[in-house]
């Protein structure tokens, strides 16, 4: 809205306050410093005004009015603390308690229950209800493997239903019955096949929605917590993790805190139990006579010193996981570059370094942080190359929530159907890996068929018809998108991991951005990343082509694939791999193992005995996110602090200490020692971080100011990135389905597979195809099928999706039993597969 902002002056309890016209009385009162109790109100949900806790008196009006849905009018005089208002509040609570189970002593919520708090504060302190209570059911009932319900405690605020519909977009909760028999639950209480994110649990003010396996395990006051950041995807959700007796037992989000406020996805909410897994590595291991044997730190470090000479240079390589903190990653590259003199560095086993470099440049990460909230203020938002609903679930929530309250267009281009489609103004189903053609077609359509100067040579000979055919889309759809973009003054592009899987789209992304900018539009680009600190890893310089802050490096080194090839050729002798499961994640598993086995020394630092660790000579036990301090930089470029909840298990050490200990073997002054001191060094080395503020409000609050802009990194002054053109990938000729991979909603990489709770949600691997394809093959969801490629075949269960592109099969990359990388072969075209029903 660009109109003039109209202000209204009102009196609240005699205090004059001027607020924007249309402000809710509740918000105006809170601004003026008067607290009004609420149950059904929540800043990010549509107001329903049903609980009547927030009634206030407006002078001149006979009835009390609900302040949570009534906007102020200029000149209004409002009273929030009159005897009538106070008694109305007490009476609402009396009504709520009338049929309430009052079983606080056994209720999980006891101690952190809004109803308890409210009754304590606003009365009544004596009950008058002496009738038989209505009971919904005698026993709690499970709604899913992680959700269990007791309706007798309900205050009917509908938050569970609304969060599921308005924010999560799953829309699987509703109410049965009416009057005092109204029960918020699933469709006739059936077991839910939903996103399992537990946001319904989080928003429930009382103990109706409870979580498994947490239920009955503890009381809230026996928990100790730490404010931290989710270790899974790049969204960077703030969360509180809590332990009892040393076991990480819960992670939760808080209203008003972080960009996610109360929401998390299944991974964040239920997947943090991996930290307390019994399979954690607790002691260093050294390979002795073929097997890995426990050893002391002195022995392990001694072994390293014995085998790696200082300044080994090119013969050494390092890979550090994008789940490590900025401080650890910074120190890791410093170790490799300064101590070992090696330029060979990477943070991922999945993509080519030229692809990541180009992607960083095309999405403008080196130009500083871009807030998702700013993106959502745009007139038009294009989501491309990202399966956002599965890979960045809470980003999906933010996009959906804001889209539904604003006049804007949301355009989604993706081969697979996703949940966010239901909020899309336009959705485009294109062939997998054809983001380049889609973007070029849009760019041409925007310029009425002629490339803009910005696109210059690149699109000189391109014909829209060819592009459309290659993308597998219709001209009408592309033109519709172009019209939307042309009509918009501001545009945001959310570009995801598919660009790294199919890097030929990267330059086109940059071109479209420039083309739109040159036609006078404000353009923002935000990457959607699937690892918590992927952006941080790059910004710390864990990359063969650039150093901290994307600054230039003396010598460019090898990336992961290059190192493996060099190892295979015998040109690389040693590798230090911290937290990355290269053997499991690198395309072409067979080759990877072969290459790793040729190394003279493989040092693996991890928290589990990963596939890669099993091949190591020395294994160093590190720490999970719950056991250390440091910062993560999310996909937007927001640096956020993580805090320590527990000590590392057994002899395991904080990763920073491990890396430093390795460094000190060669240079006793290698450091710094403390994360904060490392951060100071980072602030100096990477100007982008010089002014980042880590301060944030970590207490539950109703202000809902989620966009903490001080945390955004600045643009880099030293960036020297370039974009490489990749030739279009070819696909095998045989096979009905083009095979694509990515993250499952419940998993992220391999590491979430160590979460017992997440495993319980979905243990068997799934292959997903469109409903149409399934119908023509006479298959249905749930069938066991054989997926057969040229190099590998696997038995999986089938899942169908209504709106997905035909001829595309998707297998998540997260399953140990179906290592999807075995379908791929180095240097060969993208695999195609056939799917047939398995009958036993």
């Amino acid at each position, binding site marked *: 809205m660009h109109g003039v902002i109209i202000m209204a002056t009102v009196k609240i309890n005699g205090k004059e306050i001027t607020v924007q016209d249309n402000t809710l009385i509740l918000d105006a009162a809170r601004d003026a410093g008067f607290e009004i109790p609420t149950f059904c109100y929540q800043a990010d949900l549509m*107001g*329903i*005004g*049903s*609980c*009547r*806790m927030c*009634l206030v008196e407006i002078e001149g009006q*006979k*009835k*009390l009015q609900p302040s949570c*849905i009534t906007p102020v009018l200029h000149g209004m005089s409002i009273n929030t603390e009159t005897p009538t208002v106070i*008694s*109305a509040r007490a*009476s*609402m609570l*009396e*009504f*709520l308690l*009338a*049929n309430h189970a009052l079983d606080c002593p056994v209720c999980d919520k006891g101690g952190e229950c809004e109803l308890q708090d409210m009754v304590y504060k606003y009365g009544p302190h004596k009950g*008058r*209800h*002496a*009738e*038989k209570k*209505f009971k919904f059911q005698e026993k709690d009932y499970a709604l899913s493997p992680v959700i269990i319900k007791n309706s007798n405690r309900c*205050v*009917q605020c509908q938050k569970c239903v609304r969060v599921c519909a308005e924010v999560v977009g799953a829309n699987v909760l*509703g*109410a049965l*019955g*009416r*009057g*005092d*028999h*109204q029960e918020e639950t699933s469709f006739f209480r059936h077991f839910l096949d939903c996103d399992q994110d537990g946001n319904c649990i989080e928003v429930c003010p009382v103990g109706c929605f409870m979580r498994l396996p947490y239920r009955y395990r503890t009381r809230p006051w026996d928990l100790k917590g730490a404010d931290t950041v989710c270790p899974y995807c790049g969204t960077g959700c703030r969360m509180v993790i809590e332990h009892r007796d040393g076991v990480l037992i819960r992670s939760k989000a808080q209203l008003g805190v972080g960009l996610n406020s109360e929401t998390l996805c299944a991974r964040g909410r239920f997947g943090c139990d991996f930290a307390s897994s019994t399979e954690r590595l607790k002691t260093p291991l050294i390979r002795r006579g073929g097997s890995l044997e426990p050893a002391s730190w002195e022995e392990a470090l001694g072994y390293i010193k014995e085998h790696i000479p200082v300044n080994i240079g090119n013969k050494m390589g390092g890979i550090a996981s994008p789940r490590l903190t900025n401080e650890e990653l910074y120190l890791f590259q410093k170790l490799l570059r300064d101590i070992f003199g090696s330029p060979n560095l990477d943070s991922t086993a999945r993509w080519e370094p030229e692809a990541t470099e180009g992607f960083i440049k095309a999405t403008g990460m080196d130009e500083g942080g871009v807030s998702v909230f700013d993106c959502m203020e745009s007139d038009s938002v294009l989501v491309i190359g990202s399966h956002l609903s599965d890979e960045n679930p809470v980003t999906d929530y933010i996009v959906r929530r804001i889209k539904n309250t604003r006049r804007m267009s949301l355009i989604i281009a993706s081969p697979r159907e996703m949940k966010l489609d239901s909020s899309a103004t336009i959705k485009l189903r294109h062939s997998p890996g054809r983001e380049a053609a889609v973007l070029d077609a849009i760019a041409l359509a925007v310029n009425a068929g002629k490339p803009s100067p910005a696109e210059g040579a690149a699109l000189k000979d391109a014909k829209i018809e060819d592009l459309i055919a290659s993308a597998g889309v219709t001209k009408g759809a592309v033109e519709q998108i172009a019209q939307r973009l042309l009509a918009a003054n501001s545009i945001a592009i959310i570009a995801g991991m598919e660009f790294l899987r199919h890097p030929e789209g990267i330059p086109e992304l940059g071109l479209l951005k420039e083309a739109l900018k040159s036609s006078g539009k404000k353009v923002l680009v935000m990457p959607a990343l699937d690892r918590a600190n992927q952006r941080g890893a790059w910004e710390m310089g864990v990359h063969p082509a650039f150093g901290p802050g994307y600054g230039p490096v003396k010598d460019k080194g090898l990336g992961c694939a290059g190192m493996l090839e060099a190892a295979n050729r015998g040109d690389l002798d040693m590798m230090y791999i911290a937290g990355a499961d290269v053997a499991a994640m690198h395309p072409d598993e067979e080759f990877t193992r072969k290459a790793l086995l040729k190394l003279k020394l493989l040092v693996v630092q991890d928290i589990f005995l990963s596939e890669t660790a099993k091949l190591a000579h020395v294994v160093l036990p590190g720490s999970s996110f719950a056991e250390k301090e440091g910062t993560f930089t999310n996909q937007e470029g927001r640096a956020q602090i993580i805090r320590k909840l527990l000590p590392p298990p057994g002899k395991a050490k904080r990763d920073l200490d491990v890396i430093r200990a390795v460094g000190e073997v060669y240079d006793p002054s290698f450091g710094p020692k403390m994360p904060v001191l490392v951060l100071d060094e980072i602030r100096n080395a990477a100007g982008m971080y010089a002014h980042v503020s880590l301060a944030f409000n970590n207490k539950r609050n109703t202000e809902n100011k989620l966009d903490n802009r001080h945390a955004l990194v600045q643009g880099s002054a030293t960036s020297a990135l370039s974009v490489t053109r990749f030739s279009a990938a070819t696909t095998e000729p045989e096979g009905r389905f083009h095979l694509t991979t990515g993250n499952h909603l419940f998993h992220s990489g391999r590491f979430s597979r160590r979460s017992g709770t997440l495993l319980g949600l979905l243990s068997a691997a799934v292959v997903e195809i469109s409903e149409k394809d399934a119908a023509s093959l006479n298959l249905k969801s749930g069938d066991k099928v054989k997926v057969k490629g040229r190099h590998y075949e696997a038995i999986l269960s089938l899942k169908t999706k209504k709106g997905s592109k035909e001829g595309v099969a998707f297998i998540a990359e997260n399953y140990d039993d179906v290592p999807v990388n075995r379908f791929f072969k180095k240097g060969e075209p993208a695999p195609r597969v056939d799917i047939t029903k398995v009958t036993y």
Partner: protein
Amino acid sequence: MEKVLLKNLGKPDSHRIENYIANGGYRALEAALKLKPDNIVQMVKDSGLRGRGGAGFSTGLKWSFIPKDPTIPKYLCCNADEGEPGTFKDRGIIDNDPHLLVEGMAIASYAIGAANSYIYIRGEFAFGADRLEAAIKEATEKGYLGNNIQGSGFSHNMYVHKGFGAYICGEETALLESIEGYRGQPRKKPPFPALSGLYAKPTVINNVETLACIPAIIEKGPKWFSSMGPEKSPGPKIYCVSGHVKKPGLYELPMGTTVRDLIFNHCGGMLKNRELKAVIPGGVSAPMLTTRDLDTPLDFDSLAAKGSMLGSGAVIVMDESTCMVKMALIINRFFSHESCGKCTPCRDGTPWLTNILKRIEGGQGRQGDVELLESLCTNIFGRTFCPLGDGAVMALRGALKNFRDEFQYHIDHKKCMAS
């Protein structure tokens, strides 16, 4: 008095279009289509017609709130949910003279520019729904609905939508939710339906009887309409009389007929000539009147002045043998059963009231129950989301105010004073 609303009742095959037309039907629509829509709205305003669904809001004014922009779709919804206990007037029209409603709706739709209209009819009225479907089909065949009605260029389609048995779906915004396929619960206002109603488009919701008045207003003129009954609530009115009278039934009379005239003149007096004890003048949410109030005219303002209301025009007459505690219980049980569950005071308050009344009536009353009832009424009234909860309190307060000693007697003696 010449009847206009019930004029065809009792005539053979009054529901067939031939008979309706033979009796002068659809002439009003033909005349209306020659007028400008704005003129029709003005005529309805001038007639002084106030909504017969309960609230008594000026119908012409309601129509005039609909935006004029021809590019925005608009809807008319006829409220045929007729859920208020004691009310059966709309059903009388629907079953016997469906074309009167169809004609009224066609005119109203033309006036507000609605290309589609819905008749939301309570599920139990299966017979009436069939009659309406048949009438719509007949009218379409005869060119009174459908494309280019009577060559006027105005096109209109009408649909019957059956409810599923919830009283709350008679509340206009819950009705809209129900048509849209959601649970029947009221929406917050603003936005009012005139700006954002069905499918978030401008919508008028009118009661059956309201719409049935329209053809007569067009044909006989607003003056004729406004000259009948009190100045501020003019026109003909159907009273639905039930209870202890000799001749219960539907009576079309000028608005403002007194309670005495209705019961003792038109309805032939009290059944078995017993003494009258109380009268509920406008459906069960309306507080009851007693013998003191027999000369009250039955119209919106006169009843409001007596602390009661005309509501749907359902007049329930009770003689001296009626137990007021039982009456209060039955009425209250209706409300708690029909509470939609959205807001706290109605959802959790009305069943509490019912439970207390059940105990008192069953001889399990406790000292202090009457005071508790009164206190709970205070805590509910004026604080609910929609008028249903208020209605429950108004009814109970009416009984407590006039017959408090009967309640206390029940508590003290564990039995009834009246029977």
